[in-house]
C-alpha cells in the first residue's frame, strides 16, 4: 500500500476534470415523446423498441415518486439531458478514438488496463460506446460482447428474447425511465458450456453537464457457461445535479455461473439510482460484488431471484458515505425454488456527516423448501456526525427454511488507533488502515487492479479526515 498524502485537493475527488468535447448530437433538456422519437430515429431502431420506449415513458409518468429511500426532492426531471452522443459511430480500434477522448481515458489509466487485460474493453464515453475492442478469442468461442445498441442491430432475435424479461419497465419508476431512454451499456451472451477465463470489462463515465446516463446492460449465460463482468466508473465534478439510472439484467441459465463486479466512484452531485437483477435457474450461481463510493445519493440493491432448484445467490456490497452523501444500498435475495441458498454481506462506512443505509430484502416464496440464507451487515462509523441505519426486510412464506441475520455497528476505537500509532503510524494512516481492513473481505474478491484502485479510493476518501 503506497501512502501518498501529497495529492492536490480537488474536493477529495481524484478524477474531477472535464475535457472540452463537443457532442455530435445533444437533445434538449427534459423528456417528451418527441425526445424519445428523436432518440429512436438517430439509433435507427426497430419499431418494437420505439413502442417499448414510449410505453415505458407512459409508465414513468404514471408512477408516483418514491415514498421511501433517499431524498429525491432536488431531482428535477425537466433539467436533464436524456441523450448525448459523443461521436458518431462505434470505434473498433484504439487508433480511431478521438484524441481528446483518449486524453481523458489516459488520465483514468485506461490504456494501462487495456494492456493488462487481454479481454475486450467496452469503454463507454457519454451515452455511446466509442471504443470497443473484442479479442479474437471471444469471437472464436462464440461469446458476444458489444454495446447494447449494437446488439439490438446485430442480434435482434436474441436481444428481443431476453430484453426486459428480468426487469420489466413497470418494475419501478427508474426502471421505467431507463426503459424509455436507455442508451449504451453492455450486451454479453456466453454460449452453453463456454467459460470465459478472464473478466470482461467496461469503463464509462458521464461527461456532459446535466446529462442523464441511462445505460442498459444485458447478460445471458447459457447452460453451464461462466463469465465475470467488471465495471468500474469515475465521473467529473459538476456543480448542478446529474442523474445516473442504469438497468442491469442478467439471466443465469441452469448450471451457469455469473459474477458482476462494480466499483463506482461518482462525483458528489450525482443521483445514482440503479436497478440490478439476476434470474438464477437450476444449479446456477449469481454473484454481485458492488462497491459504491461518491455520488450525492445512491439507491442500489442488486438482487438475485432464485427460480430453479439449488440456485445460489451471493451479494457483497460496500458503501462509503462521506460529507453530503447518502448511500442507500444493500441487496435482495428472493428464493422461489427449493434447496436454494443465498448470502448477503454488507459493509458500510460513514464519515464527515455521511449517511450509510443498509436496505435489504430476504424473501422466501411458498414451496421453496429447505432454503438457506445468511445476511451479515457491518457498519463502521468514523465520527459522531455520521450516520448508519439498517432496514432488513424479511418475508417468509415457507416453514422449512434456515435464516441467519447479523448486524453490527462499530466505531474506530481509540484503543485501535493508539495501538497502531504506538508503532509509528500516523493517525490518518492508522484510520485508513483500519477502514481498509474493514472492507478487506470485499476487496479480496476483486481483480488485483481493482483491489489496488479500491484501496487508493478509500485512501483519498480518508484524506484530511483527521485533525
Amino acid at each position: 500500500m503506497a501512502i501518498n498524502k501529497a495529492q492536490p485537493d480537488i474536493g477529495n475527488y481524484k478524477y474531477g476534470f472535464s475535457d472540452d468535447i463537443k457532442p455530435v448530437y445533444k437533445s434538449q433538456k427534459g423528456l417528451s415523446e418527441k425526445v424519445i422519437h428523436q432518440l429512436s430515429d438517430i439509433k435507427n431502431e426497430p419499431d418494437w423498441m420505439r413502442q417499448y420506449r414510449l410505453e415505458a415513458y407512459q409508465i414513468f409518468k404514471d408512477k408516483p415518486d418514491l415514498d421511501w429511500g433517499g431524498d429525491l426532492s432536488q431531482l428535477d426531471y425537466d433539467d436533464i439531458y436524456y441523450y448525448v452522443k459523443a461521436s458518431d459511430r462505434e470505434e473498433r480500434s484504439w487508433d480511431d478514438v478521438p484524441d481528446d477522448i483518449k486524453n481523458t481515458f489516459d488520465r483514468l489509466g485506461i490504456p494501462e488496463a487495456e494492456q493488462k487485460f487481454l479481454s475486450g474493453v467496452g469503454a463507454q464515453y457519454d451515452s455511446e460506446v466509442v471504443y470497443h475492442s473484442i479479442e479474437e478469442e471471444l469471437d472464436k468461442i462464440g461469446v458476444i460482447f458489444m454495446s447494447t445498441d449494437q446488439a439490438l442491430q446485430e442480434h435482434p432475435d436474441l436481444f428481443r428474447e431476453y430484453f426486459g424479461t428480468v426487469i420489466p419497465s413497470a418494475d419501478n419508476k427508474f426502471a421505467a425511465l431507463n426503459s424509455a431512454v436507455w442508451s449504451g451499456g453492455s450486451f454479453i451472451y456466453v454460449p452453453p458450456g463456454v467459460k470465459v477465463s478472464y473478466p470482461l470489462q467496461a469503463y464509462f463515465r458521464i461527461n456532459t453537464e446535466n446529462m442523464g446516463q441511462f445505460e442498459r446492460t444485458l447478460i445471458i449465460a447459457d447452460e453451464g457457461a461462466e463469465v465475470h463482468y467488471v465495471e468500474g466508473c469515475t465521473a467529473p465534478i459538476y456543480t448542478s445535479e446529474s442523474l445516473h439510472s442504469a438497468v442491469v439484467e442478467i439471466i443465469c441459465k441452469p448450471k451457469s455461473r455469473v459474477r458482476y463486479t462494480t466499483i463506482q466512484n461518482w462525483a458528489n452531485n450525482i443521483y445514482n439510482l440503479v436497478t440490478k437483477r439476476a434470474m438464477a435457474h437450476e444449479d446456477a450461481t449469481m454473484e454481485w460484488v458492488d462497491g459504491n463510493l461518491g455520488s450525492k445519493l445512491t439507491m442500489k440493491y442488486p438482487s438475485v431471484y432464485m427460480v430453479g432448484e439449488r440456485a445460489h445467490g451471493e451479494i457483497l456490497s460496500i458503501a462509503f458515505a462521506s460529507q453530503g452523501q447518502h448511500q442507500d444500498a444493500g441487496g435482495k435475495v428472493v428464493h422461489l425454488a427449493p434447496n436454494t441458498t443465498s448470502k448477503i454481506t454488507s459493509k458500510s462506512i460513514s464519515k464527515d456527516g455521511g449517511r450509510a443505509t443498509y436496505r435489504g430484502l430476504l424473501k422466501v416464496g411458498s414451496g421453496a423448501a429447505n432454503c438457506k440464507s445468511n445476511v451479515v451487515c457491518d457498519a463502521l462509523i468514523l465520527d459522531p456526525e455520521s450516520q448508519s441505519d439498517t432496514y432488513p426486510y424479511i418475508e417468509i412464506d415457507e416453514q422449512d427454511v434456515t435464516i441467519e441475520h447479523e448486524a453490527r455497528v462499530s466505531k474506530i476505537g481509540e484503543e485501535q488507533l493508539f495501538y497502531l500509532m504506538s508503532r509509528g503510524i500516523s493517525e490518518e494512516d492508522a484510520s485508513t488502515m483500519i477502514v481498509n481492513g474493514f472492507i478487506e473481505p470485499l476487496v479480496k474478491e476483486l481483480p488485483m487492479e481493482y483491489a489496488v484502485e479500491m484501496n487508493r479510493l478509500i485512501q483519498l476518501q480518508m484524506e484530511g479526515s483527521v485533525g
Partner: protein
Amino acid sequence: MQHQLTINNLHADVNGEEILTGVDLTIRSGEIHAMMGPNGSGKSTLANTLMGHPSYKVTSGAVTFDGQDLIELEADERAKMGLFLAFQYPMAIPGVTMANFLRLAVSSVRNNGTSDSTTTSLIPMREFRQELRQKMKKLGIDEAFARRYLNDGFSGGEKKRAEILQLAMLEPKIAILDETDSGLDIDAVRIVGESVNQLIGSDLGVLVITHYPRLLSYIKPDHVHIILGGRVVESGGWELAEQLEAEGYDAIREKYKEVDLDTKEQYTNTVPANV
C-alpha cells in the same frame, strides 16, 4: 550511541483520577529494569502514559527522551523517536495482515526525518520480506503468521509473540514490556522470555513491567523497582525480585501502608471491552 529515557516526578490522571503520584525512573541504553507491583499499583498506567495514550493525562512532572520533552508528542512521534510498548492487551485489527501492518510501521519509523513529512514511502517489498522472514525465523515464528490479520483470533501466546516480533522489526531504543507474561502458561512465558532475550543486545534499554517474577528468570534485570500507590517505593538489584518471590507483596504493602492506601481500590487495570 547512548539513549536515555528520564521520568521525573510524574503525575498522571485517568478519567480525572490520579493514578501516578510521582514516578522517578531513568532507563539508559543497555539497561534492563524490572517494574514490579501488585494489581492497581499503576504499572500499566505508567506504560500507557509513557507511550502517549490519549486517555492518560500528565498533570505534572516530566518525561524526556534524550533530553527532548515527550509529553506533548503523539504516540506515533514517540515511536519514531525510538520508544516501544509491548501491550498487555494487543488490539485486533481485522482485515489488516501482519505483513502489511509491519511494513507501514517499519517504513514510518525508519523514514522519520529522512523524507517529506507528508509522505510515508514504503520500504521495498523484497527488502522488507527478506528482513521479516529472517526475524521470524530467529524468533521461531512460522512464516504463515505474516499473512494473518493482526491479532485477530490470535491466542494469548500468539499475541505476545506478535508483540515481540514487532519489537524485533521496529528496532526501538527503549522498549517497555507491559505484563508480557500475563495470561500465558509456563511454556509460553519461557518462549516469550527467550525471544526477548535474543533481542536484548548491548543497545536496547528495557523496562519490564510485571506482576510475577517468573518472566524475570529469563530476562534478568540489572535494576528492580517496586511500584505501589503510583510511585516507585523501592529500587535495588536482583535481590529485590528474589525477596518479592519469597515474601509476596503483602510484606511490601505492610511496609508502605500509607502509600498503599492512596491506591484507588476501585481502579484495577481496565481491560478494553473488545479484548
